[in-house]
């Protein structure tokens, strides 16, 4: 009985809200059919738990307008285990971010590969997460030049 109560409450809390994402695997949050490459200037870095975010100003090739896009990455612990440091990214840096668009259409991508100004590139997925470049390791096998330009 109390279990039913609790589940109804849980359901109401979750459904009554409209979360933009389910916050776990690639497939639930991002669209593997919408690859994107963002080329632009870093405007903001949030080196935060549980997820890092960095924001890039890009020029929309269709409209010519400048848009600010968010890229979601792993938490600081996971990133530093791959050789990133907070100071590696500086505001104004020219970066290339390859990723996949959020299913809800917002200006958010899941950062699969980030190429820094010094040429270093870091794989952003987790082994086995099923996203592009996933080969079961934390290096990934995304080529350095991915396909689609931003549409």
């Amino acid at each position: 009985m109390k279990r039913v109560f609790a589940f109804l409450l849980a359901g109401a809390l979750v459904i009554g809200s409209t979360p933009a994402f389910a916050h776990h695997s690639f497939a639930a949050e991002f669209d593997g059919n919408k690859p994107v490459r963002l080329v632009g200037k870093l405007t903001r870095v949030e080196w935060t738990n549980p997820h890092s975010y960095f924001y890039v100003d890009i020029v929309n090739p269709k409209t010519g307008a400048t848009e600010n896009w968010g890229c979601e990455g792993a938490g600081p612990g996971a990133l530093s285990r791959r050789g990133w440091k907070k100071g590696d990214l500086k505001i104004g840096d020219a970066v290339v971010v390859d990723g996949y668009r959020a299913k809800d259409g917002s200006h958010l991508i899941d950062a699969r590969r980030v190429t820094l100004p010094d040429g270093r590139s870091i794989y952003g997925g987790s082994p086995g997460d099923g996203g592009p470049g996933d080969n079961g390791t934390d290096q990934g096998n995304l080529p350095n030049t991915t396909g689609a330009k931003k549409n």
Partner: protein
Amino acid sequence: MQPLFIALGHSALGHYMQTSVWGFAVVEAIHLLALAVLGGSVLVVDLRLLGVIFRKESTRTLDRDLSRLLLGSLVILILTGIAMVSEEALKCYFSPAFRWKMTLLAVAVLFYFTIHRHALLRADINGLTAWSRIAAAISMGLWLGVGVAGRAIGFL
């Protein structure tokens, strides 16, 4: 093993979990609630075996009801756990934290039905001995390990 995980990911359950907006959230919430109940049962029984609480209470009496709570919540944890794995099957397969969790879980369950059960039943007759205390400590350590490994899945 890997084909098993791939199959789980491609199953009907897997497809549902991967596409449903709130499916994972609800399943995970249930997993958390069951975790609280399991943890509470483990704590009460093992602290009794350590002689910290319920000193006047028969371990058999405590175990009769708390084991039902423990096993009931364990079943729910396993079912919701399978559902969550189906959502990101390969990621779990490759995750060292997940492998640790499964290993510790297997050991914890095995320990529970053998040495721990024995210690519980003997405690009423022999009182608290070094053995019962060690069994309690190992039990708590194993279940804690399962919990910690579970959290680590998300952080690695």
